[in-house]
């Protein structure tokens, strides 16, 4: 694991940049644990102050210090992305390994369901959930719904690897040795799909956090819960750009771009690392 890390940092500049960017954002988000202010309260500071020594990122029209507000928002968004990614990974690993190893009708049924999920446009469905749940749609419920929608691509990927593993010598040995199906999948096959799981983990986080930004900006989430999207929602509500409170828009947008870029670079370089052909080319062998 550590040697993989060392190789990535040594041969892959994208991975290093991604790691630095994500590290910065995570550190910034972690500051919210020592935040002196409660991010859900409003009118605690003088509104509309530009960035200064006292308020590093300025204050917004709702009288909140933007530094601590954004710190809490990014923490919540990252936690949201992690929750969706972990939950949907569990589904995709289960479905992918089971479909690939068991084959036959299990495979056909699971892939049929999988194809349905791939074809359904997710955004209207999420809006529909907001439409019926309204204020009951808290962040965890939203994460749960997104996890139930965000697994099919990766399940298919994992299945294709698991299908190859099924006919390998060590699987046959394990079966002859009397290992149960569950044990074969968990102990023999899971380690082989772990690289894919890690790469898709980042992609899934990108996907869910982008959708959260969109829903929140449109006002379709819990707006009192600071996230990347709700910060932008409130700045839109107060027409920040028109009023001239540019820091309320520019700073969050720059931070969002840094976050997504960092995660994307990590996902991309890991994908490249998994493919031995491109890895060897990069190492110059």
């Amino acid at each position: 694991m550590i040697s993989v890390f060392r190789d990535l940092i040594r041969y892959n500049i994208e991975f290093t940049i991604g790691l630095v960017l994500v590290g910065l954002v995570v550190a910034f988000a972690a500051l919210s644990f020592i935040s002196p202010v409660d991010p859900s309260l409003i009118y605690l500071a003088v509104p509309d102050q530009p960035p200064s020594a006292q308020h590093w990122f300025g204050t917004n029209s709702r009288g909140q210090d933007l530094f601590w507000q954004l710190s809490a928002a990014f923490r919540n968004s990252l936690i949201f992305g992690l929750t969706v990614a972990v939950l949907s990974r569990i589904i995709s690993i289960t479905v992918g390994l089971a479909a690939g190893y068991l084959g036959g009708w299990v495979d056909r049924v699971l892939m049929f369901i999988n194809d349905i999920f791939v074809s359904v446009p997710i955004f209207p469905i999420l809006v529909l959930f907001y439409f019926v749940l309204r204020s009951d749609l808290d962040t965890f419920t939203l994460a749960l719904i997104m996890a139930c929608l965000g697994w099919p691509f990766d399940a298919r990927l994992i299945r294709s690897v698991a299908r190859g593993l099924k006919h390998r010598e060590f699987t046959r040995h394990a079966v002859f040795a009397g290992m149960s199906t569950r044990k074969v999948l968990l102990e023999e096959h899971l380690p082989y799909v772990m690289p894919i799981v890690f790469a898709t983990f980042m992609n899934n986080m990108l996907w869910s956090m982008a959708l959260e930004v969109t829903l929140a900006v449109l006002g379709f989430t819990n707006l009192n819960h600071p996230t990347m999207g709700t910060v932008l929602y409130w700045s839109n509500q107060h027409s920040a750009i028109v009023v001239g409170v540019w820091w309320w828009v520019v700073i969050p947008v720059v931070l969002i771009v840094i976050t997504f870029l960092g995660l994307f670079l990590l996902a991309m370089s890991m994908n490249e690392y998994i493919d031995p052909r491109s890895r060897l080319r990069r190492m110059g062998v």
Partner: protein
Amino acid sequence: MRAYLLFAGKRFLQLLAVIFCGISATFLVTHLSPIDPVEQVLGRLSARSNLSPDAIAATRAALTELYGTNQPILQQYFNFWARLLRGDLGPSLLAFPTPSMDLVARALPWTLGLLATSTLFTFIVGNLMGALAGYRPDNPFFRAFGLLSIAIQPIPYYVVAFILLIIFGYYLPILPTNGGFGMDVRPGWTPQFIVSLLQHAILPAASLVLVGFGGWFLGMRALVSNIINDDYVTYAELAGVDRRTVVGSYVIRNAMLPQLTALAMTLGGVFSGTIITEEVFNYPGMGSLLIDAVNYGDYSLVLAVATVSITAVAGAIFIVDLLYPLLDPRIRAE
């Protein structure tokens, strides 16, 4: 040919299953929720005007009749399908008494036009550029392009559209940022209208192209950089086959197949992106309609938009999937 027809038939059954499941899910989500559409509508109505108790009771009875909420859920489900097959999901509240399906039919061409042109453009140009970049990995122009795609591609649709809106709406007002055509032109096939239409489509389309482009570029570049090391490409080059033929018929042809599958798989996501872009630029398509309907609490319009978009996206994916074997001679020959 028989194999292809068999494949198409199977795929068609799957399309029906997708549409059936998607629409059933839509029904379940809306009907198992504790919110009663009748009370919602009544709340909206009585908030706007003074109604006598009798009028409210009469409206409630009429609305209950209309939505059929007094029947058991299974009966409601069958009624829902019966009404859907007739293309009648009840009047919209947003523009009462226009049927919601009419509003959807009016919005659909805008979304389809925007989606089809921007997707085709990004797919073709992104793949071509990606193929060339993969074929010539050391070309500085393509390297710069690659970096640019990496930088823009992961940004959410909304943020890209929003940045464009800020730039062209406030700092550099040369392009219209609002609506589908100018206020001062009459819809019709006149030159002024078409020019206005195109002008208004530039920014929404540009934001879709900006986000979508990088994925195709990077994907194709990775595919091509693997293919050019394959034996048949080396052999063709050694045998003196024309460069252009090598790139066009040997490299792109083979790299195209996985990209086409990817196109089918991303269409749903692109549709979501279009909805968001429309909302940002106030484009009169399905996205703006859906968001207005949600904000207004318009039950039948939300259902209409959701069912039509599920059907449309599933249909588009079906068409792309049918194209796939036609491009792959191995499957065609069977």
